[in-house]
């Protein structure tokens, strides 16, 4: 090892604390990049492989009941490669020793062969006998959550008929990677399952022999979905079409896709912040090192070392920092990816391992990490290389301070001399101060943008569960039932109050825009399920038109007073033009609301309901749940407290992990910026500070000067951090907003306060670590030497 390399290693060892502070910031960037790039790719690859191997359909369509003879015409649509028809339904299940309500989605399996599309992958047991009327496949997570194994039995109430069913095998399907029951907000494998049943048995039970209600289509390569969807809608319209759609609105697919998108967004947003701060910190620290080593550089040059060797020497020092940062980042990133994979295993049902980060995200994040550190070192290295030896061996010219308007302003403020020293130093190095402020502001903003989440969720829970939906249970029906069903519901054990609601599937059109969404109808005196706007006001749909959520109105380009064309789908078909009479701000769904009586008049129908909202006497809850099983046509039920609890559990678990992670990230950035800033202060001012000690200033007074600048910058960073945090939170809210839900931008004062507290505390601890070094200042030797 030559002498210069030895110097490199010794410098690195001597300044380890400063370098570690930088390496940790870099590591955070590398870890997030590795995790987000690696996991988004891994998730995408796993999903694509799964889709391809098990032939996940491109287009889906639902209708009330269409004859199988239609299939010929459907297969003849240009671009259709495979079209497979199924019958499907929702039914309640009864499982031995289980009290709660269990609902399952039933789908038929072709009689003569394995399915061609959305092929379930058999995990254990065997395929059901096609001619059997009792053998079924169950989706594996549901079976496991309920302790069901091949050979076990349970009963189902299908279309009013009770059936003893036997589990033949357990399976997974690309159609149900993310399984979410009706009315649920998060997956609940215990209470919602998928049952595959031979077609002959299921269509017999549903009275749809020779017919289908669900269609899966695979397109030929190179063909687009839109024309096929249009043609399908036209062909199926007479049969109660609910509208065809592509993968984008398939529930499972859209959740997986949403996760991949979020990971990608993460990869583009967070790592650049950390890498940018790394560049700044390396630049600041290396600049100081080159300044301190001025005479050594002159000496090296005088000895005949080339410019390149000297420049490389400093770049290599930054390279060592990068090596530590990248190494730590890889470890942390692998660990994070593993953690995320475990989280995915909880929510997503894949037959293969998702955690499979390939080598390239390691290489990419590593290269970018090294590039960031080198970019930070370039300026200092160039300066070192360009110093002429004669000048280098001279001490540098002292920094020039000049009097200007600023001094007059400060004189007017009557600042003490130490305070003046703090302020002058900031003004003397404005760029460094500005970047330090920016760095700490980014730390604040990360905390604000992540801390606002729990508050937003509280607001969502409050609106969704306490204000809008005050019922204890909801019953869903496969089809609209006469309003007299309310009377039957009132007779169920424990029911105190019952109110009806009806959902209509419809396409809303305005000019060239259209959107398929359910229209909710209720009576104006409804007390259990109400429309509540963002301000907590209860709003009834006006009787002479339609009320839209702001998001839906915006998507359709509609305002109050405009006419919207509504095409009703399914059992109640027809197209109407109805005025928009009101807009309402909401967090969930693309709400469209009408008055039930207006609709009944419009359709000239007797009052009907498709959802019944109930309040219950808690003491009779078990009896109530047991009775549900016997209600024919029941497609599902939601117990609101369970729904809320599972939502809160899922969210709070994730919020805790996320909040802790971001807290750590914010603290890391602050530590990197504040610690290095203070170390450089100490290095630059050692002499000044020692002079002050000799003049009789106490350690505390001298520490004030050292800590004051960084703390002042940290304080200045707060408002900027709040503003940036608000901006990030707003962007996140907009980015996460989907048809399913919008996250309210709730920024309480305590969100800002806690973010500031964390950053100020981290800054204070960082500078305190440096201030402790003041005790080691050698007053005598500082006085005897020229800087």
């Amino acid at each position, binding site marked *: 090892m030559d002498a210069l390399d030895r110097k490199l290693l010794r410098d690195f060892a001597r300044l380890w604390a400063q370098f570690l502070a930088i390496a940790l910031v870099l590591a955070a960037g590398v870890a997030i990049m590795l995790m987000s790039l690696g996991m988004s790719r891994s998730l995408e690859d796993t999903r694509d492989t799964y889709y391809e191997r098990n032939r996940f359909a491109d287009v889906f369509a639902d209708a009330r009941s269409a004859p199988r003879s239609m299939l010929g015409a459907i297969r003849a649509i240009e671009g259709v490669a495979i079209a497979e028809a199924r019958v499907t339904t929702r039914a309640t299940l009864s499982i031995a020793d289980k009290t709660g309500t269990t609902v399952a989605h039933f789908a038929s399996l072709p009689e003569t062969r394995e399915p061609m599309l959305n092929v379930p992958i058999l995990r254990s047991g065997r395929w059901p006998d096609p001619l059997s009327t009792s053998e079924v496949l169950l989706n594996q997570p549901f079976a496991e959550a309920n302790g069901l194994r091949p050979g076990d039995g349970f009963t189902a109430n299908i279309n009013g008929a009770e059936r003893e069913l036997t589990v033949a095998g357990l399976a997974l399907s690309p159609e149900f990677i993310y399984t979410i029951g009706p009315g649920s907000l998060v997956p609940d494998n215990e209470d919602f399952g998928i049952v595959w049943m031979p077609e002959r048995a299921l269509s017999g039970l549903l009275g749809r022999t020779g017919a289908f209600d669900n269609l899966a289509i695979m397109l030929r390569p190179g063909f687009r979905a839109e024309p096929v969807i249009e043609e399908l809608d036209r062909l199926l319209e007479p049969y109660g079409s609910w509208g065809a759609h592509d993968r984008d609105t398939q529930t499972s697919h859209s959740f997986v896709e949403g996760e991949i998108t979020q990971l990608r967004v993460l990869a583009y947003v967070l790592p650049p912040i950390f890498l940018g701060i790394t560049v700044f910190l390396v630049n600041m620290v290396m600049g100081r090192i080159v300044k301190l080593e001025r005479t050594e550089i002159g000496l090296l040059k005088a000895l005949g070392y080339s410019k390149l060797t000297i420049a490389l020497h400093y770049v290599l020092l930054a390279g060592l920092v990068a090596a530590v940062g990248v190494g730590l980042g890889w470890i942390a990133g692998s660990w994070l990816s593993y953690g995320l994979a475990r989280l995915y295993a909880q929510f997503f049902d894949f037959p293969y391992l998702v955690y499979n980060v390939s080598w390239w995200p390691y290489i990419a994040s590593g290269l970018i990490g090294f590039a960031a550190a080198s970019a930070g070192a370039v300026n200092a290295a160039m300066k070192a290389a360009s110093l002429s030896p004669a000048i280098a061996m001279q001490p540098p010219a002292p*920094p020039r*301070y000049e009097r200007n308007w600023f001094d007059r302003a400060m004189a007017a403020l009557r600042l003490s001399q130490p305070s*003046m020293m703090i302020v*002058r130093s900031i003004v003397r190095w404005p760029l460094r101060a500005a970047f330090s402020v920016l760095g700490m502001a980014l730390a604040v903003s990360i905390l604000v943008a992540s801390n606002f989440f729990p508050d937003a969720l509280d607001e969502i829970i409050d609106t969704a569960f306490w204000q809008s939906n005050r019922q204890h249970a909801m019953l869903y029906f496969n089809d609209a039932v006469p309003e007299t069903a309310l009377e039957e519901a009132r007779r169920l054990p424990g029911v105190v109050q019952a109110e009806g609601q009806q959902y209509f599937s419809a396409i809303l059109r305005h000019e060239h825009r259209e959107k398929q969404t359910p229209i909710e109808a209720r009576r104006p005196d409804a007390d259990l399920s109400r429309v509540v706007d963002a301000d907590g006001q209860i709003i009834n749909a006006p009787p002479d038109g339609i009320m839209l959520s702001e998001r839906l109105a915006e998507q359709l380009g509609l305002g109050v007073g405009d006419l919207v064309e509504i095409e009703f789908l399914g059992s109640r078909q027809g197209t109407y033009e109805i005025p928009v009479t009101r807009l309402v701000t909401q967090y969930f769904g693309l709400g469209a609301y009408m008055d039930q009586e207006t609709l009944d008049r419009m359709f000239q129908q007797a009052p009907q309901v498709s959802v019944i909202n109930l309040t219950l006497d808690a003491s009779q809850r078990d009896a109530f749940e047991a009775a549900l099983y016997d209600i024919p046509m029941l497609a599902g039920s939601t117990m609101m407290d369970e729904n809320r609890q599972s939502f809160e559990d899922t969210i709070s678990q994730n919020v805790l992990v996320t909040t802790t992670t971001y807290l750590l990230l914010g603290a890391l950035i602050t530590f990197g910026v504040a610690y290095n800033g203070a170390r450089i202060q100490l290095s630059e001012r050692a002499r000044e500070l020692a*002079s002050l000690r*000799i003049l*009789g200033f106490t350690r505390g*007074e001298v520490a004030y000067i050292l800590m004051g600048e960084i703390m002042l910058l940290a304080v200045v960073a707060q408002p900027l951090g709040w503003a940036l945090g608000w901006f990030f939170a707003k962007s996140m809210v907009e980015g996460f907003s989907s048809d399913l839900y919008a996250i309210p931008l709730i920024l309480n004062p305590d969100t800002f306060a806690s973010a500031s507290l964390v950053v100020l505390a981290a800054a204070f601890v960082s500078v305190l670590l440096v201030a402790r070094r003041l005790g080691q200042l050698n007053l*005598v030797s500082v006085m005897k030497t020229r800087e």
Partner: protein
Amino acid sequence: MNTPDPNPVFRTEGLTKVYDTGEVKVFALAGVDLELFAGEFAVLLGPSGSGKSTLLNVLGGLDSATEGRVWFRDLELTALADRGLTRFRRDHVGFVFQFYNLVPSLTARENVQLVTDVSINPMTPEEALDRVGLAHRMDHFPAEMSGGEQQRVAIARAVAKRPEVLLCDEPTGALDSTTGVQVLEVLRHVNDEMGTSTVVITHNAEIRRMAHRVIWFQDGKIVNVDVNTERVAPSEIAW
């Protein structure tokens, strides 16, 4: 010209300072007994490493003794901890160093103000700077001044709090002869007018001619003390 008060401001007894590097022990001071008197202008002379700076640092409360005792009037410095020494420096001692040690981000006036802000009975920064002949340079930053001017600011800063003692370590070491003499004149002026006991370390033997007493150091010990019966004015000194 004032004559020294026979009461000592500083008194040392067997003052010893050992630098222990682990392998060798260096006796920077090897049992120094010395008295310095109020209003006295003393010059310490001796080769490098003879112990004069160490003595000055211990007297000024910058360094601690290994053995022996030091009193400032009735106050035993060797019994004080860091806090007490800081207090002592703040209230009683003015320092002047070879390399001025001004704060570059503060003007001449503000550098002096650093001290007057924390002193009990200081003169104004303007008065202190006037005493060193820099009334017209008060609002200049150190980088805008010559070495001699910077050293005069350092002296103004040292005397502004009306210290009882002024400790100067090579005050003219970084200056040429002409500016050096200007600085010596300021020191002499302060000693005459304010009665401040002044101790000056120097390598420059010429300067001894302006002192009341000259104390010679070698190997950590006082080897000789001369009393000048006749002191010369700084303007008569040249090197």
